[in-house]
């Protein structure tokens, strides 16, 4: 009963003050550069985005952490793609994506795009407007993780 009251109280408050310390999210971007050494081996370097020109590959890294004392449930991270960035892939993190500005969501390979002649084609990475990771299990107190996706500067 005490707990229920506490939560009710919390919900009535502006909320931000309480929530501010519960989850930490960090968002970083790197430029992915592939160099080939004298032996022909390719090395992938992640650099700070100082020199960025159209066509460069970007790696966006999202670090999250539940800094609160209780598990965080229904944990959903949403990342609209910047207008000047074309989605490439999200590694093996299997996010939900939207290709219509966040109205509908699905796995990229299940989405289709209507063509002017009435037929539909499979959605391509370049069609993606939003990315979303929806966790099925709560993030325990102190739990953290990392998500990433790649894009290309248009």
């Amino acid at each position: 009963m005490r707990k229920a009251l506490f939560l009710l109280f919390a919900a009535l408050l502006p909320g931000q003050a309480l929530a501010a310390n519960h989850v930490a999210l960090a968002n970083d971007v790197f430029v992915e550069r592939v160099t080939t050494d004298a032996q022909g081996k390719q090395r992938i370097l992640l650099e700070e985005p100082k020199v960025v020109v159209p066509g460069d590959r970007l790696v966006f890294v999202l670090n999250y952490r539940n800094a609160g004392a209780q598990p965080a449930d229904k944990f959903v991270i949403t990342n609209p793609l910047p207008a000047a960035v074309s989605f490439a892939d999200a590694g093996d993190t299997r996010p939900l994506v939207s290709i219509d500005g966040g109205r509908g969501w699905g796995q990229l390979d299940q989405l289709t795009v209507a063509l002017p002649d009435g037929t539909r084609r499979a959605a391509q990475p370049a069609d993606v407007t939003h990315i979303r990771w929806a966790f099925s299990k709560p993030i325990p107190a102190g739990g953290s993780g990392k998500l990433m996706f790649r894009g290309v500067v248009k």
Partner: protein
Amino acid sequence: MTSKLNTVGIIGLAAITSLAATPAFAAGTTAGTTITNTATVDYQVGGVAQGQQSASNNFTVDRKINLLVEEVGTVTTNVVPGQTNAVTTFQLTNSSNETLDFALVASQIAGGTAAHGGTDTFDVTNVRIYRDNIATGTVGSWDVGDTLLTGYVDELVVDTAIRLFVVADVPASLANNAVAGVTLRATAREGGTVGAQGAAITQTAGANTAGKDTVFADIAGVTGDAARDGSHSDNDDYTVQTATLTVAKSSRVISDPFNNTTNPKLIPGAVVEYCIAVANSGGVAATSVVINDAVPGQLTFVPGSILLGGTYTGTVPSGTCDFNGTAGGSYTAPNVTGTIATIAAGAAQTLVFRATVN
């Protein structure tokens, strides 16, 4: 620790309609654009939705300088000696992500192999550069409505290709197949000021800044034009196509007053037939070829004996005249004159006339 992701998707899998076409970004995002990426977290604690958390980062898109100069078509421009306003055509494309000026230099190659084979042997004169006017005149070809440039293209916007004409005059007295190579080189300059050529652009050296840096991304052009130097170039050439005429004169005795046409001898009263053969070994037809021959004082021209446009067997002058043709020409003592309208490249024609020995 890792968290399991809901790979099925909790919001719904309904097929999603999107009619928005994917825009094409050949040159890309405009330099100086700040790209901000924001991620948000929605979550619940104890079944109660908590305030949304978000995190952002941003960076600035730098300036990529890329341009392309290409010869239009892959053939030489045929010219004749003395021709004015001979045109070679190039295309300049601004593939940078910013509107820029482009300094232009049309130069002549000195010796060596020209763009379409052949060795550069002469220089054209009065070299000018025009920008095609796509509003009036013949679009894609040089005409009087095109704009004479003063060394640069002003404010060429992103992803735009324009046609440039290098126009020059050809000196007189050049041999058939003589070649003059020309190079058009464009160098990116700062844009932003209409009507004036912008300052030179240098690549951002050393440690880069968080602001708008400059990166050269052009490919190598002609010999001496390296990749990533902010400029690009291409070659084209002029090839002289002229008529080269060779003249040969031959004669035969037709008859004499005693032997008539059987083994005639060159005695007074004998009829002599002359043949002036003109061969064109050049690359183009020669027109209005006027043949003039003074009849020697010891001979008397036979009126009405001129035949024009006859044939010649073999190569002038080593072959033989066929002494044929159609009547024409004129005689004004002492000159026989005839005009052949056209002698095609590689062809020969003749003028034939008769005279008697005094």
